[in-house]
């Protein structure tokens, strides 16, 4: 019991630190938000022009697609870049050995920090881009709290899956000196197969199958489809089950991979 | 003939006072509150061709600001600088051709390039004539021992290697004036010595003017015939090195050792006791009023002196004394 209280205290300070860090870069924040808003306008205009030709595309109405696209755009910055560069930095600068000595599990601590940042960014996005979308683009967001709740849970699971993927990716990437290039490769694949750019049902069937076998759709396409009403709520059970299965596999792999890498570092004395 | 002419030079920085947060930032945008800080105030000096001048003072005294104005990086607020007939700011390019600069802690070279490639680039930028370049390169390689590092990229050099590389890059276009900002900082004794010899040698063979800021008084003692001391933005001393010793170091100390315990000593006038223990006595006296032999004679008549040592004030302790007691500057007339 005492141990739990201790952990919670640490988590609270990790959460607080991450929020402070994010708010410190004021100018950065507004710049990113502005750039993001511009790109959202580009996307929405494109899709509106597209729907001027047809009533539905791949079975989706304009309202459904636009809601999907705007929500996916909001989540995109949260998943686009991951933390591979930071990861490489911890390992190269040798901070990882001191990190490993701390009483709280390293992966757990980084995970809490990462999740905090993700959800603070989501709140900012919902506030600014969300209200802009509702006011200017006439998007109707669901009012049913149940839908929001299931979206948030699904997003939490999705982000955890992606976190584990990035953890594995980070363990691989630090062998390369060109972390930035690898990260762009990761970003490109993620952009296409996570559903950030378009609802995955619009992809040709071959690419759709490929997307199903990658973990990326779990973090964007699945939660956003729930919130935009593309996926009906009665499928919730099977969706969560599927996400949990992904999470279990990815978590196991990430632990294995990390232990392997750490052994390697300690052997090399890096 | 003076090559650097500084008249009534002053620099005042104006910074906007910011309050925190978005509100403060917006306020600063529309109704900025300025705060002024005088970095250099009414500076005057002339430097002749071929002089090596040590420009010294505590951190924040205005050394860097002065150097930046002389090199054309900063605009003066008041007064004027003329370097070889050019205004370094308005005729920046013309001035840049005449000068070489080494900023001790910032590299002028390209991080990823081998030294020889960096030097080639610099030579290209300054349009050094190829045959002349070749000649200088082989000369520098010898004096600065560059051979071993010519193919090494700057990023993998030691501090000493880096500084030798910087010097070669700063001198490769045979500048008439060289500004060296802390050229020996953090280096070991051997490298320091080599660098000093290089500067001295180059100065003598090319009649190059050197202005050097440093915290290492060894640099000053070995290189500089003239010293300018700046404090809180104003010049407080300008003159030959040996005059500092005469003017600021008017006290000498003398220490007597005895075989028997010292008791009851009558000191000569203009002489002051610094410390006294059972077998040793340390005195301080004004060299303009007393000679060492007068003090020694006076003391030998009273106590059984086994040995005595006379201490000249060294530059380091004089400068330290000056830095710590700004009022001490007033003890001498500034040599104009």
């Amino acid at each position, binding site marked *: 019991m005492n141990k739990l209280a201790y952990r919670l205290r640490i988590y609270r300070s990790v959460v607080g630190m991450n929020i402070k860090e994010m708010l410190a870069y004021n*100018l950065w924040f507004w710049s*990113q938000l502005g750039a993001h808003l511009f790109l959202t306008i*580009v996307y929405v205009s494109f899709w509106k022009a597209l729907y001027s030709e047809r009533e539905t*595309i791949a079975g989706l109405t304009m309202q459904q697609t636009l809601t999907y696209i705007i929500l996916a755009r909001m989540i995109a910055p949260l998943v686009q870049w991951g933390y591979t560069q930071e990861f490489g930095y911890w390992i190269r600068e040798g901070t990882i050995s001191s990190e490993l000595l701390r009483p709280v599990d390293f992966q757990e601590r980084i995970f809490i920090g990462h999740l905090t940042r993700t959800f603070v960014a989501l709140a900012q996005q919902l506030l600014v881009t969300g209200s802009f979308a509702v006011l200017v683009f006439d998007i109707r967001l669901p009012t049913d709290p149940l839908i929001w709740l299931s979206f948030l849970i699904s997003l939490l699971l999705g982000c955890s899956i992606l976190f584990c993927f990035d953890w594995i990716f980070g363990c691989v990437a630090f062998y*390369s000196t060109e972390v930035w290039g690898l990260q762009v490769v990761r970003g490109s694949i993620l952009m296409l197969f996570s559903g950030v750019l378009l609802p995955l049902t619009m992809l040709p069937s071959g*690419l759709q199958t490929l997307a199903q076998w990658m973990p990326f759709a779990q973090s964007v396409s699945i939660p956003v489809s729930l919130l935009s009403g593309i996926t009906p709520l009665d499928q919730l059970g099977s969706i969560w089950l599927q996400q949990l299965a992904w999470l279990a596999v990815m978590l196991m792999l990430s632990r294995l991979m990390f232990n392997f890498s750490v052994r390697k570092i300690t052997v090399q004395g890096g | 003939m003076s090559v650097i002419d500084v008249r009534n030079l002053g620099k005042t920085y104006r910074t906007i006072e910011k309050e925190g947060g978005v509100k403060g930032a917006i306020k600063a945008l529309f109704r900025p509150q300025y705060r002024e800080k005088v970095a250099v105030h009414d500076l005057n000096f002339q430097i002749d061709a071929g002089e090596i001048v040590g420009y010294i003072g505590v951190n924040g005294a205005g050394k860097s600001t002065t150097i930046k104005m002389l090199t054309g990086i900063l605009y003066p607020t008041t007064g004027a600088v003329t370097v070889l007939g050019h205004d370094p700011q308005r005729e920046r390019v013309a001035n840049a051709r005449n000068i070489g600069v080494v900023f001790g802690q*910032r590299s002028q070279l*390209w991080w990823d390039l081998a030294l020889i490639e960096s030097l080639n*680039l610099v030579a290209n930028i300054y349009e050094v004539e190829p045959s002349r370049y070749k000649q200088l390169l082989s000369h520098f390689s010898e004096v600065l021992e560059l051979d071993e590092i010519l193919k090494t990229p700057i990023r993998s050099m030691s501090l000493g290697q880096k500084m030798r590389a910087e010097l070669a890059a700063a001198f490769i276009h045979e500048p008439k004036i060289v500004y060296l900002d802390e050229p020996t900082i953090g280096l070991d004794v051997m490298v320091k010595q080599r660098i000093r010899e290089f500067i001295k040698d180059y100065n003598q063979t090319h009649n190059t003017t050197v202005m050097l800021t440093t915290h290492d008084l060894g640099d000053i003692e070995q290189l500089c015939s003239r010293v300018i001391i700046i404090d809180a933005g104003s010049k407080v001393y300008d003159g030959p090195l040996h005059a500092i010793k005469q003017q600021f170091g008017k006290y000498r100390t003398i220490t007597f050792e005895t075989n028997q315990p010292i008791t009851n000593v009558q000191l000569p006038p203009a002489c002051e006791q610094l410390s006294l223990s059972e077998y040793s006595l340390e005195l301080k006296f004004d060299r303009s009023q007393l000679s060492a032999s007068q003090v020694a004679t006076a003391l030998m008549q009273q106590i059984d002196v086994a040995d005595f040592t006379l201490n000249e004030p060294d530059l380091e302790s004089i400068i330290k004394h000056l830095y710590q007691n700004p009022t001490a500057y007033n003890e001498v007339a500034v040599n104009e």
Partner: protein
Amino acid sequence: MLRYSKIYWYFVVQRFKILMEYRLNFFIGSISTVLFQGASIIAMWAVLRQVPSIQGWTLEQILLIYGLLTLSKGINHLFADNLWVIGRDYIRPGQFDRFLVRPINPLFHLLADRICHDAIGDFIVGFGLVGYAMVKLQLPITLASISFIILMVISGGIIFIALNLITAATAFWIMDSIPVTNLVFSTNEFAQYPLTFYHRSVGILLTWLLPYGFASYYPASYLLGHSIGWMAWLAPLIALVSITIAYRFWVFGLKHYGSTGS
């Protein structure tokens, strides 16, 4: 001029040597740019294969716009990428001063200091798309059309550089200029589609205020035979005006730097 091209050539040769030293990085750098653009293009293709055209624009026609924009962006990427990091990598660590004590133009020195080879990826994608679109659309590939494209791409590249130069010069006041550059630069995304897709105000913005439209939409319209009149030939003039204004602003910023020093 001759002197400057000689010095620039030296920088290029040095850059190439570094590049050869890190061949793998170069390869990954270029590939990553291609992949990143590839993802967007595949997505666009996936959607557009389901409709014959959008407001009269076919997939190939939109790819022509996209390709022209990518080529202009590539010019900026290749020659002026260092403008992004002037505050972070030069002014803050005091490295900018070394440009000011050398007998060449500091802006030239800054740009030459890092020629960005990652741009090769932009050129591969850009050439590929423009070539593909020209062939598919059966547009005449003649000396005249090629010269037109080259002129427009260069003008577009200069427009990109001009806008980045203005935002980079803010570093003389605020030090960290990347967010400012990022914000302005991101509006070029509007220019990857026909400007008619957007609200009228976006068209005006991208034509007269942040004239990225001249890098893509206007030249593509001309090549496709749309009647846009003299607007087709305005790009070089716009480029000239923007770069002049941008350089003036840069010099103004440089003056400010000279009075504060940091």
